[in-house]
């Protein structure tokens, strides 16, 4: 395998934003997650919980509610008073409609999916009709005295429950008049000065309304008589979210202390038919407020201020007890946020509104395996580049020579030229970007830094030649049909002859850069692509998918390689397939064509194609064999997958040169240290 000096980088100050809303779509088994910076991410739960699409955030969009409507349409509403529809095919925002009620606090789609109800700051509940291309304002319901913080439709679409401050009102959906009002106590069996905020309501088909409020109570009401049926005191802090399953036999609530409670409808005694709601399971997977929960048929999904998305499959609903029934916690991004300029040893970090350029430190010391070498020169923060405007950065890249930086937001494309003189760095912006280069999903520079490849969100691929002081548009590859994948990845061969682009429904497309036309198409696979890489010399395209399958395709021969067929025949090791996080980067050794370096969040792996493949019985994560063992044993236990779990959690691993690796880590404690304050926990003895 070889010995490497590893640069352990921990100065990438990556802090994800907290999760605000979660919406589950049953038909397509997809989860829409919106964060506090306005980003909306779509996770495909059947493709190994991979984040397949995302809409970049915007500073003025403070999303407060997210919901799916009929026909896979996604709507969100926020404090800027607008209802936004997202176009999942084109990956843009279709339109934004102002509701004229002030900031919008809650939104609910009717059970039939054709109407949308929003609750506003001024106390009005507005009904919109969903037409095939837009939404149309229909009617205002009776105006309430305080802001409407939560809404819920009756499954038959006849009534609506709205939670305000200190009371819940029930409306008749046809006429819009308020039929009933249920007053909520400010504190469980007590008096309090703080107003009781009803964070969530749920309307069940037998007329019961379940409400969760800021006093920590879960209350069950009968909407026909307006009386309280049952009161559960669940926590000392707020209970902030509620989600009911489709069968209405269980619901889940999330509290501000990070606990998620599961309530189930259980019969009173084993023989009677009378049922009651009982709190069955507590889950403590979060440290901060759980502001959003969702209930899918088999799992409980929760997300909150501590930025984790936790999917907990329910044991009684899972049919087969295999690895699918394990807890999934999604913390780190499923895309690459770090680019590396290998020759100059520079790293480019992508944040939401700025880019940072760092030069790696150097050392002159040498040592044995496992030693920490002292730095003779520290890492240097060279550049802090802010983008103008309120939008978040979608993608960024630095050329391998370090002379060009490109980044893109939803409406603008930035290209900068860097000059280095004696430790000083000067930046020049290339102005007058062409009109077609508005926003890019992926940017890649060629190995000799003369060409720039841009995958735009209009599904076309642009090739641009970079000149000193400007650029020249060379060619545009025609747009492909089918929905746009957000993970539109690009890979270019080191000799500059081939360009591979994923993102089309047909599979991975390979273009010839020299002849500027499509060369071949890798057959489509039903799981999305998570990483692409083209090997030097052999021009083999290595593709990693979200179900942890890795394929190798030979571009000159237009077929899968022998090694890839052998791997597929034998199958991967079961531990390899059970990994949680997707592979986000593939790179190669310049001198050794048999090596492939891949990494995901918790491991990095060097695949040696010359060694035999492991079968299910061998140990996958074999540690470094002790040197006093005989050669025979080492040869018998060695296999192709050399995995190291020494550095984790990893955001990026790459080979800088033959003897050096760079590993960008992001310890979870450093992220947690920068989160907002959590609720105080009192423990005996402290």
């Amino acid at each position: 395998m070889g010995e490497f000096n590893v640069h352990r980088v921990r100065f990438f100050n990556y802090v994800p934003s907290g999760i605000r809303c979660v919406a589950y779509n049953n038909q397509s088994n997809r989860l829409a997650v919106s964060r506090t910076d306005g980003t909306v991410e779509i996770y495909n739960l059947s493709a190994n919980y991979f984040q397949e699409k995302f809409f970049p955030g915007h500073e003025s969009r403070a999303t407060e509610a997210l919901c799916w409507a009929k026909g896979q349409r996604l709507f969100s509403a926020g404090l800027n008073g607008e209802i936004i529809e997202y176009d999942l095919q084109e990956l843009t925002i279709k339109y934004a409609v102002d509701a004229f009620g002030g900031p919008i606090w809650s939104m609910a789609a009717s059970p039939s999916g054709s109407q949308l109800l929003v609750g506003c700051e001024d106390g009005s509940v507005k009904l919109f009709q969903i037409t095939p291309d837009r939404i149309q304002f229909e009617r205002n319901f009776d105006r309430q005295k305080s802001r409407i913080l939560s809404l819920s439709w009756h499954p038959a679409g006849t009534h609506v429950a709205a939670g305000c401050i200190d009371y819940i009102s029930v409306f008749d959906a046809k006429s819009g008049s308020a039929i009933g009002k249920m007053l909520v106590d400010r504190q469980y069996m007590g008096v309090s000065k703080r107003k009781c905020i009803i964070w969530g309501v749920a309307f069940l088909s037998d007329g019961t309304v379940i409400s969760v409020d800021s006093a920590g109570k879960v209350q069950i009401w009968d909407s026909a008589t307006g009386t309280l049926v049952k009161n559960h005191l669940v926590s000392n802090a707020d209970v902030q979210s509620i989600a009911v399953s489709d069968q209405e036999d269980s619901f889940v609530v999330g509290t501000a202390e990070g606990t998620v409670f599961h309530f189930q409808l259980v019969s009173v005694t084993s023989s009677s038919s009378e049922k009651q709601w009982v709190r069955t399971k507590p889950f403590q997977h979060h440290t901060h407020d759980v502001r959003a929960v969702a209930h899918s048929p088999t799992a409980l999904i929760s997300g909150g201020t501590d930025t984790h998305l936790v999917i907990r499959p329910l044991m009684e609903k899972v049919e087969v007890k295999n690895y699918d029934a394990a807890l999934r916690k999604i913390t780190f991004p499923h895309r690459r946020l770090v680019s590396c300029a290998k020759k100059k040893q520079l790293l480019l970090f992508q944040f939401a509104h700025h880019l940072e350029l760092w030069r790696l430190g150097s050392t002159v010391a040498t040592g044995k395996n496992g030693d920490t070498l002292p730095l003779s020169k520290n890492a240097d923060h060279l550049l802090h580049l802010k983008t103008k405007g309120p939008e978040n950065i979608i993608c960024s890249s630095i050329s391998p020579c370090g002379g060009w930086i490109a980044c893109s937001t939803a409406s603008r494309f930035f290209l900068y030229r860097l000059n280095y003189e004696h430790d000083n760095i000067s930046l020049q912006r290339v102005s007058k970007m062409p009109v077609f280069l508005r926003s890019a999903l992926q940017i890649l520079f060629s190995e000799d830094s003369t060409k720039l490849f841009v995958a735009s969100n209009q599904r076309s691929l642009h090739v641009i030649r970079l000149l000193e002081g400007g650029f020249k548009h060379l060619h545009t590859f025609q747009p492909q049909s089918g929905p746009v994948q957000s993970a539109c990845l690009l890979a270019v061969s080191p000799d500059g002859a081939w360009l591979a682009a994923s993102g089309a429904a047909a599979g991975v497309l390979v273009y010839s850069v020299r002849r500027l036309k499509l060369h071949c198409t890798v057959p489509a696979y039903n799981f999305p692509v998570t990483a692409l890489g083209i090997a030097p010399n052999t021009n083999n395209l290595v593709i990693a998918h979200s179900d942890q399958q890795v394929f190798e395709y030979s571009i000159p021969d237009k077929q899968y390689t022998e090694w890839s067929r052998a791997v597929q025949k034998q199958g991967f090791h079961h531990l390899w397939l059970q990994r949680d996080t997707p592979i986000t980067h593939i790179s190669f050794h310049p001198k050794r064509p048999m090596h492939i370096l891949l990494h995901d969040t918790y491991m990095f792996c060097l695949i040696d194609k010359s060694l035999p493949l492991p079968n299910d019985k061998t140990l996958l994560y074999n540690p470094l064999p002790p040197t006093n063992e005989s050669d025979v044993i080492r040869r018998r236990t060695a296999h192709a997958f050399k995995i190291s779990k020494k550095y984790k959690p990893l955001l990026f691993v790459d080979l800088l040169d033959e003897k050096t690796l760079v590993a960008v880590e992001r310890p979870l404690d450093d992220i947690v240290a920068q989160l907002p304050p959590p609720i105080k926990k009192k423990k005996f003895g402290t």
Partner: protein
Amino acid sequence: MVQLRPRASRAPASASAMVDEGQPASEEEAGHGLLLGQPSSGAAAEPLEEDEEGDDELDDEAPEELTFASAQAEAKEEERRVRETVRRDRALLKEKRKRREELFIEQKKRKLLPDTILEKLTTASQTSVKKSPGKLKEVNLQKKNEEREKGSDSKKAKEKVQKVQTVGQNKSYMAVRLKDQDLRDSRQEAAKAFIQNCLYGPGTNRTTVNKFLSLENKRLPMKKAAAQFLNNTWGSQRKQNAKRFTKRWMVRKMKTPKK
């Protein structure tokens, strides 16, 4: 006090007073004379009564003769008197205002720094503004963005202060581009403040992340330190200075040859 019209019987005395009024030198005297001429109510009452009594006795006599000329002269004198009083009042007010302004100017002069320092300041700020407008803009943007990230309420105040520095000495107004202002509504602000208050305001039981994570360390059988025990940002300026000093010292040490 009612200014009674001087009676015909007093006419000669007042006429002499009025004649004196024509000369400006005797203005004040005339004024005083007029004032004196104004009979007090008591004094007026007596002659009235006397006159009345006199009138009763002299009822049968013919009324006094009053020539047109004398009446005209009286009227003219009266007008002149009124004009004089108005002019005097205005003059008095003017004087008052003049004195006040002078007082204010003096006070202001006392407050401001000596002129030399002010000159220096204005020239220095102008040249610095001319040299690096770009830098200032970046600094402003940086500060703005930092503050946005922090989300502090004193954001707007800080921005105003910065703008004032670039505008110069004119602290009475501030010119701001509408484009640079964030797209915020007062209602949106109020909504955000409401949420912030509900979740993190007074009455909520919040604690710092450090304390939260260190809670378990306190209950372990071997008590450990807090999760963020060291404050790495303490004394960063001092540490930088120390580094620079050691560098310079090393260079000096290398330069001087060993004896």
